[in-house]
């Protein structure tokens, strides 16, 4: 009852059905301009001191998502999963390769990120809609249903700073899911709120997943991957390691995780015996 139908047969994979195409895409971070650069530091770096290698958050990534598909992106922390979603959402431009996204994209990235704490919930809904690029009439039409869904009651006209974190998460979720996107990008959104709201939000996400033409989901919840996705990719250190059936990809990911855990356990044991060796052994 819950799953999306099995992957469309290869014959249906004509170009008109393609929702997302990624070709040999790479994202490079220039570590010269990281957070809180000061002019002094940059001048020093431009003059040659402390030059740093560019860092590839993603490289040589190619994938294709057709209409009706739900793709799960899994991998360890820092592998580049969220960067991939940011590229698909158009937030980050690829440094090499090309990305082709067809349709209205909506991302339920970290919820409630853009809230203005001084403004009321209602003002934040209008502002959030404007940031998402919704027409004003659309936002105003959606307003009652968003307020009702978020279960905020009279708090809707109070500043966001008076909200509990659960209220904030509910409002963020309600705004983000009020849009009917063609392509839905989800980044670990299923773990917010209390058990009650989690069940409610999961139902809503399933509803949107069914309505959307394509879904790309980043998650650490492996049961979701095997249950609701019809394809999965494993990303490690910015490279696409495996693409295919969710169960197989999850199995490989589990295997790699266990290996990594064993390696770090071994390193920890070595550290107990000889700190010098452990320092070299650990990555």
């Amino acid at each position, binding site marked *: 009852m819950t799953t999306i139908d099995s992957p469309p047969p290869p014959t249906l994979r004509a170009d008109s059905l393609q929702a997302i195409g990624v070709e040999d895409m790479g994202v490079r971070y220039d570590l010269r*301009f990281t957070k809180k650069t000061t002019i002094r530091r940059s001048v020093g770096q431009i003059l040659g001191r402390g030059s740093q290698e560019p860092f590839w958050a993603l490289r040589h990534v190619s994938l294709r998502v057709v209409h009706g598909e739900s793709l799960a992106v899994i991998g360890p922390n820092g592998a580049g999963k969220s960067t991939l979603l940011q590229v698909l959402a158009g937030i*980050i431009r690829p440094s090499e*390769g090309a990305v082709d996204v067809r349709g209205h994209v909506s991302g339920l990235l970290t919820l409630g990120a853009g809230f203005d704490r001084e403004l009321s919930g209602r003002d934040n809904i209008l502002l959030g809609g404007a940031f998402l690029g919704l027409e004003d009439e659309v936002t105003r039409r959606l307003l009652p249903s968003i307020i009702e869904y978020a279960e905020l009651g009279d708090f809707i006209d109070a500043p966001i700073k008076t909200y509990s974190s659960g209220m904030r998460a509910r409002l963020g979720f309600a705004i983000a899911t009020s849009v009917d996107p063609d392509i839905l990008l989800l980044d670990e959104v299923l773990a917010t709120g209390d058990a009650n709201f989690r069940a409610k939000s999961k139902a809503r996400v399933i509803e949107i997943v069914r309505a959307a033409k394509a879904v790309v989901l980043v998650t650490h919840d492996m049961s979701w991957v095997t249950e609701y996705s019809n394809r999965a990719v494993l990303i490690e250190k910015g490279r696409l390691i495996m693409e295919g059936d969710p169960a197989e990809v999850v199995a490989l990911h589990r295997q790699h995780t266990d290996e990594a855990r064993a390696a770090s356990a071994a390193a920890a044991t070595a550290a107990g015996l000889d700190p010098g060796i452990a320092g070299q052994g650990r990555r």
Partner: protein
Amino acid sequence: MSVTSEVPAAFRNAADDPGAARLIREGLADIVSRRRLVRYLVQADMRKRGADTILGNFWWVLDPLLQMLVYVIFVTIVVSRKTPDYPLFIFAAILPWKWFTTSVVDATSAVASQDRLIKQIQFPKLVLPVATTTAGVVGFAFGLIPLAGLMLFYADRISPFLLLVPLIAVVQYVFTLAFSILLAAGNVFFRDLGNVARHVLRLWWFLSPGLYSLAVLDEVHVVQANPILKVIANANPFAILFEAYRKVIYGAPTSPPGLPDWTSLAVLLLVSVGFLALSTVVFKRLEPSFAKVL
């Protein structure tokens, strides 16, 4: 359902390198298509300024008056210069200057302070400095209330030339916008640009004919010895703006208000439009890296 105003198909190629003309066109389209967002941001800005303070938006009225008081005391008692109707003389400069500094300081952090949002949603970042600069206009409009009050004390200087104030403000707006857009983009990469801007602004104020008239410079020895300084002083955008505001609000110490120097205003407007085009191109070129650097 078609709810978003963006183009549904987005093709992004790393090799794509748009030219200056296209970037300016895109920048214009960004603002026009998101004018509602700019409006909401301006409203939010106004609402927040009013919140959490006892006097609320009344500070917009009080602030320039108190600033004027400080300078009147400083100049008439410490420096003991005698200029007739001096409070009005400097108020004509304080008001536009306060607008400029508020806009520039706010715009500097406009992009950097929205880091969380920028990493979550794709939207034209150009709306951020445009909104803060436009919010400054509202503050300037509030400042016209104490100006009107002050004019009542100097009723003999009230003239129809006061109606030209908005026209001069348009020139200032274009210049401020260009300056703000450039700083907003630069501050993403250099976070100490805000500190630099604050000090440069303070120096700029004292080098501009705000507390004194441009003519006073002729009496200064350094300027007499180096005529080039006079040329530089005349080219200062705020020399042109202050002199223009003062001409229509105050006039001259011994003569009533009159028409401003249209030629220098027109030149400043032209230069500002060019400056605006330049900073839009710089901003649009840097925009793709914002999400990575923040």
